[in-house]
């Protein structure tokens, strides 16, 4: 039986499906019996979702204006609207 520590170390490989079958089985068997590790892996999974949604600071207004000005001169196919 794997320990919680071993399961925590295997968590990413388990979730990615890259662990070899015997190790995969070991983690699976542990998770069936250990709610604390199940919760930990659930949180790891939700963390990926949070990372995907993570916000970054918006560009400063002058950077946006400068890029928009370049787009106005170069980003047009030539035809006016």
């Amino acid at each position: 039986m794997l320990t919680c520590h071993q399961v925590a170390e295997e968590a990413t490989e388990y979730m990615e499906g890259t662990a070899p079958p015997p190790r995969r089985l070991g983690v699976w068997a542990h998770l069936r019996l250990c709610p604390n590790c199940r919760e930990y892996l659930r949180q790891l999974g939700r963390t990926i979702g949070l990372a995907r949604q993570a916000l970054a600071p918006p560009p400063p207004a002058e950077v946006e204006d400068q890029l928009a000005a370049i787009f106005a001169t170069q980003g047009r196919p030539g035809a006016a609207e």
Partner: protein
Amino acid sequence: MRRNQGGIGVAPQGSYQAGAEEAALVARLRAGDQAAFRQLVRARHGRLLRLAGAFCRSRASAEEVVQETWLAVITGLHGFSGEAPLAAWINGILVNKAKTRAVRDGRMVNFSDLAREEGEGDAFEPERFLPDGHWAEQHRPWDALTPEREAGDRELLAGVGEALEKLPPAQRAVVLLRDVEGLDSAAICATLGISEANLRVLLHRARTKLRDAADRLVRG
């Protein structure tokens, strides 16, 4: 990043088909629509800067790389094939620019060396576990993390962004490319010049740290 609103799901490269929302954005961009371009800049600029920061050693050079990327996007829009998501196309330009610049400046980050350094030692603090290998603490469920908060709690999501920036550079690069931008492992290994084993170690360490940061943020 929202894509493929048409119910097709995230298609693998080669069979990607843009959802209606993205197709409309691309059409407006090609027509020279200023509002559409500003919308794109607002949506992507910060993420590009964050990604560039994983490759560049200074904030100033990351900013220049992002600027060069936007110029390439503006001039390249008409050649954009739509075979990949717009965001992925822009990210690809950025990564190429960042690498080219780092090589030119003689400051290419060697991710393989970093992977070795960052993979040393234990991923977990020893006090997280009892001597018999059990967790020292119970993980309390993230009941406070409702789907609404997950999608729209700006303070929480900005906090996760800050946690991303605090990761060591190779862990940051891997988690940004994989979990944030959705590249596959082979593409990331090729881009960073690391092995699959390196990638897994870095991803594990990055996610472990992010989960701990998220745990604090979720509970406020």
